[in-house]
């Protein structure tokens, strides 16, 4: 047990009997249209799992001894059976952490949530002021999130989480985010922006600059023990001797996976694309069969080539970075991370083919084409 992280990482790379960190997006429906949405959510998919199917998946996760699941979406609270599934999961000994924009947490729901055990809630917020937040998450979403947090506090929910995707525009607010979380008795969670889903289009404008990567690393070294990160910033470990807290590896298909709203199983929440689809919970043998025997997951559990990073002295520290980030900017999977702190990502992106893979499963709401204002005219003779 004495900490020998590198040996542990080697063991985890070979995969586990069941995931540690399973994300389950319950629906593609969402009241918001965040520009970085990793699942391009907006509209419900008619093929989404029924209540009975979802409960059967939970039965299976119980048998596999999955300790807890991360529920997201879309906005999971939109599902009419949301509380039913929540209670069913917790009743089967599977703790739940769910992510929400807070729009459906009123005073009564906050009390109901506060009465449940083994439940964690993450409210998404991408700015400590409405201007910064709403530019990414949509008009009114800041006020909505703060209102939900007030309800949770008033209901005595306890320590909920505030979940932030770090961007070029909110990176200077990290101290303010921490202060905001503290003022609610909440815990701060910051994660890395990926060019996934609608993020494929917004990433180039939103992802932190190279100087800001240093800033995030320094901030995490100073605050890391009290801030959750989903271990998503491990590419920054190349910046110094001291590794960031958490697991320094890509967990995709090894300790992590995603079940999407229609039951498809992907290697991680950031790679909703056919190339990373391992199977479906609707297949014969269900989720367990996919997790244990899919070809894709078997491949991901093999030792990975360092590829273009072989000769870089930092490879052991950064592990080549995030697979999803590389994939959606067109960098080969054995190439450098696009946000490589040594700057190798920039060159790799320039060399990447112009044909970047497009995210699949786009459930964005129809684009409202702005029609030019019609000017009533009367044509006639003067």
């Amino acid at each position: 047990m004495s900490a020998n992280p590198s040996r542990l990482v080697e063991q985890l790379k070979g995969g586990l009997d069941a995931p540690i960190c399973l994300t389950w997006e319950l629906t593609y429906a969402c009241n918001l249209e965040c520009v970085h949405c990793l699942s391009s959510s907006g509209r419900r998919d008619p093929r989404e799992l029924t209540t009975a199917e979802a409960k059967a998946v939970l039965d299976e996760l119980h048998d596999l001894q999955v300790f807890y699941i991360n529920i997201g979406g879309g906005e999971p609270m939109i599902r009419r059976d949301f509380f039913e599934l929540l209670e069913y999961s917790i009743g089967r000994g599977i703790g739940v952490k769910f992510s929400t924009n807070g729009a459906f947490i009123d005073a009564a729901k906050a009390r109901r949530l506060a009465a449940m055990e083994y439940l964690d809630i993450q409210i998404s917020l991408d700015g400590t002021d409405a201007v910064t937040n709403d530019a990414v998450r949509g008009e009114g979403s800041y006020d909505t999130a703060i209102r939900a947090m007030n309800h949770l506090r008033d209901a005595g929910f306890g320590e909920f989480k505030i979940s932030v995707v770090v961007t070029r525009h909110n990176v200077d607010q990290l101290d303010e985010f921490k202060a905001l979380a503290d003022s609610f008795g909440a815990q701060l969670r910051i994660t890395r922006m990926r060019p996934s889903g609608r993020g494929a289009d917004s990433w180039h404008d939103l992802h932190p600059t190279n100087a800001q990567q240093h800033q995030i690393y320094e901030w995490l070294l100073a605050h890391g023990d009290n801030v959750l990160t989903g271990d998503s910033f491990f590419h920054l470990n190349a910046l110094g001797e001291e590794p960031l807290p958490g697991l320094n590896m890509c967990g995709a298909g090894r300790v992590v996976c995603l079940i999407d709203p229609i039951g498809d199983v992907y290697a991680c929440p950031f790679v909703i694309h056919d190339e990373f689809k391992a199977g479906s919970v609707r297949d014969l043998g269900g989720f367990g069969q996919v997790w244990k025997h899919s070809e894709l997951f078997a491949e991901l559990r093999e030792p990975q080539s360092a590829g273009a990073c072989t000769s870089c002295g930092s490879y052991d520290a950064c592990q080549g970075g995030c697979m999803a980030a590389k994939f959606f900017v067109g960098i080969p999977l054995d190439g450098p991370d696009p946000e490589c702190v040594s700057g190798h990502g920039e060159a790799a992106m320039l060399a990447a083919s112009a044909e970047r893979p497009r995210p699949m499963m786009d459930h964005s709401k129809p684009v409202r084409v702005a029609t030019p204002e019609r000017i009533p005219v009367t044509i006639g003779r003067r």
Partner: protein
Amino acid sequence: MLDRHLELDPQVALRPEPFGALAYHYGNRKLIFLKHPDMVRVVQALGDHDTLADTLRSCEIDETRWPSFESALAALTESEMLHERQPVTTG
């Protein structure tokens, strides 16, 4: 440490894995890796024996390895995976 009366916290679940087991505490949400099958056997047997020394002996752990078990179990106690058993009062 060796004379302590420890047991697995009832809120902790163990999941067998090829390397040993995962231990998850439903209360404080901590996840810990038990990185050797012997460690899993010891942790599971704690409740059946009076002291840690008794447990290590009955699990046939060589005495040269006891110090590493002691420090590992101390860490598990720190993270509340193990707790002190209430002394049994008789009479």
